[in-house]
């Protein structure tokens, strides 16, 4: 690089050497760009790499100073111990059941409402839509206490009578985790944005053929909304799999614990069992990580879409 620059400076007039200076600067710039990005990646992935590495180390090795990044005494005992001590299998099933139920319900309810908002004309449509979006401004903490009390007083469930008295209602049940989450304003908004891009001609052609609105939704709009479906499904699954706060409030019995709740309470109870907790953390992350890596194309594109108006 340096040699060629010198050669050119000798053989040619000034303007060329200026171009080369520019090139050096731009190469330097490129180098700095890569350097910053790589340092950033190291900082952002290090905590995560440490978790995986630590989960394969005996407890004693975790306390090494300097830290060992590559397990010296590789072991899978942590996983073994965690699985034995905690009810992980059951937690996994609970989390999977809850997350998948929420995904299925949300896909149906969100997309149906979104189709109605995007492609049908009826009195009050825009007013209802704007009102719906307006409620997004209410911070989540406002709902905590009332929703907890509402769940507690759902009639006829959990030993409650008609007036919702006497039992625990939907608290400490799958219902309480699934139903309040089964429709989402964000989801409807996102789906609607997507469905707006379906040409009206298509919908109208189907209407001319006498198809009912539900059929148009089911057979025309929905099949054309693949990416929106994928994004809604993945993000809803991730959100519900990772959720901790609501299960913490709602669930009290051992057999209904989700992965995150189980792991968190295990950690709070066994503050020194770092080895087992690291193994549990890896296991609790694995499903969402796999789903993200497989479907990340949809994920990234979907997030991009939500940011646009």
């Amino acid at each position, binding site marked *: 690089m340096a040699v060629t620059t010198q050669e050119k400076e000798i053989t040619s007039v000034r303007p060329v050497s200026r171009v080369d200076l520019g090139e050096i600067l731009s190469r330097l710039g490129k180098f700095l*760009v*890569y350097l*910053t*990005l790589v340092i*950033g990646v190291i900082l*952002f992935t290090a*905590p*995560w790499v440490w*978790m995986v590495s630590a989960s394969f180390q005996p407890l004693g090795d975790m306390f090494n*100073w*300097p*830290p060992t990044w590559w397990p010296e005494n590789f072991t899978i005992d942590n996983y073994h111990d965690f699985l034995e001590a905690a009810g992980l299998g059951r937690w996994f099933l609970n989390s999977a059941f809850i997350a998948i139920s929420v995904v299925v319900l949300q896909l*149906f309810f*969100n997309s*149906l409402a979104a*189709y*109605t908002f995007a492609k*049908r*004309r*009826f*009195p009050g*449509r825009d007013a209802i839509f704007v009102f719906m979006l307006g409620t997004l*401004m209410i*911070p*989540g*903490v*406002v*709902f*905590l*206490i009332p929703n907890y*009390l*509402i769940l507690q007083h759902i009639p006829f469930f959990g030993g409650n009578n008609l007036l919702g008295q006497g039992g625990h209602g939907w608290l400490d049940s799958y219902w309480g985790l699934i139903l309040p989450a*089964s*429709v989402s*304003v964000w989801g409807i908004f996102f789906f609607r944005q997507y469905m707006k891009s379906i040409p*009206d*001609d298509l919908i109208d052609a189907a*209407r*001319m053929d006498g198809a009912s*609105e*539900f059929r148009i*939704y089911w057979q025309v709009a929905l099949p054309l909304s693949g990416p929106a479906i994928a994004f809604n499904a993945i993000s809803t699954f*991730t959100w519900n799999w*990772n959720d*901790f*706060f609501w299960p913490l409030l709602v669930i009290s019995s051992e057999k209904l614990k989700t992965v*995150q709740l189980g792991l*968190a309470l295990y*950690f709070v109870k066994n503050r020194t069992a770092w080895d087992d907790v690291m193994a549990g*953390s890896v296991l*609790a*992350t694995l499903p*969402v*990580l796999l789903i*993200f890596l497989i479907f990340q194309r949809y994920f*990234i594109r979907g*997030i*991009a879409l939500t*940011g*646009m108006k």
Partner: protein
Amino acid sequence: MAILARTQQKPGKEPITFGDTFKQMRKQWSAYLSLSPWFILFSIFTLFSVSFSFYISFREWNILEPAKPFVGLENYIHLFKDEKFFQSLWNTILFTGFGVPLGMASGLLIALLLNTKVRGQGLFRTFYYIPVITPLVVSSVIWKWIYQGDYGLLNYYLLRLGIIKEKLLWLADPDLAMPALIIMGVWMGTGGIMVMYLAGLQSIPEELYDAAKVDGANGFQRMLFVTVPLLSPTTFYVLITSIIGSFQAFAHIYIMTNGGPLGRTTVVGYYIYQKGFRHFEMGYASAMAYILFALILIFTIIQMKYIKGDIQY
């Protein structure tokens, strides 16, 4: 096409009288039916919920006691004398006021760097995004270890680099706990912000840059006068969603610090949880939630007014 779209509703005529509206509503009954699953849940868990919360906030509401007496504004008045509430508000402001701008700056920086047509953009993006999908509980476990005083990773590397002289107790030191949580928050939030900025950057037409180049603008000027203004809708969106997200912070505080030391990491959300579900003062906690709601509302309105004239599409 426009005419076709309206064949069902008589072209161009919007219903004017109540009778017309009513006829339309009857004709389109199935539209209301399709909205009903959402509307039923929305009515219970959002509309009723918000009003119910307001109702509770005027009562002394202990879930264990059958009597829930009306106390008027007592909860609200009590709030203004509660030092812990003001501390939690201040903590929330610190957490948001430092965390959100830092996260946005790092997200924007990475997005700008990735947008310079680097090789392996997708791979970089994946790595930066992984913290976002990592469960909060798991992130809390990892960072609790990183911040450990005796064996923590952070202390080791800061000592090695000579930045600190002795081991610091990140989460137990009243002055360091909040910064520690903010750093962790930036780690968790940057990836999401980066992806949104990348989308915003990619929607800026290439011709604008070419035109600026022709006009003799250098790289820095192009960024200042083309990129930044055109990104303002994205910035606005990112800002609002980040602030909302930041106000919801809970899980890592629950797992890592329990609101301590000396209440220095008790944010409003955590204080509401403590009051409502630990001390069973649900009326008081609801009043707190409403004050928070009001503050966010005021803040959003100011922001909208202030930024409205600034956004260029």
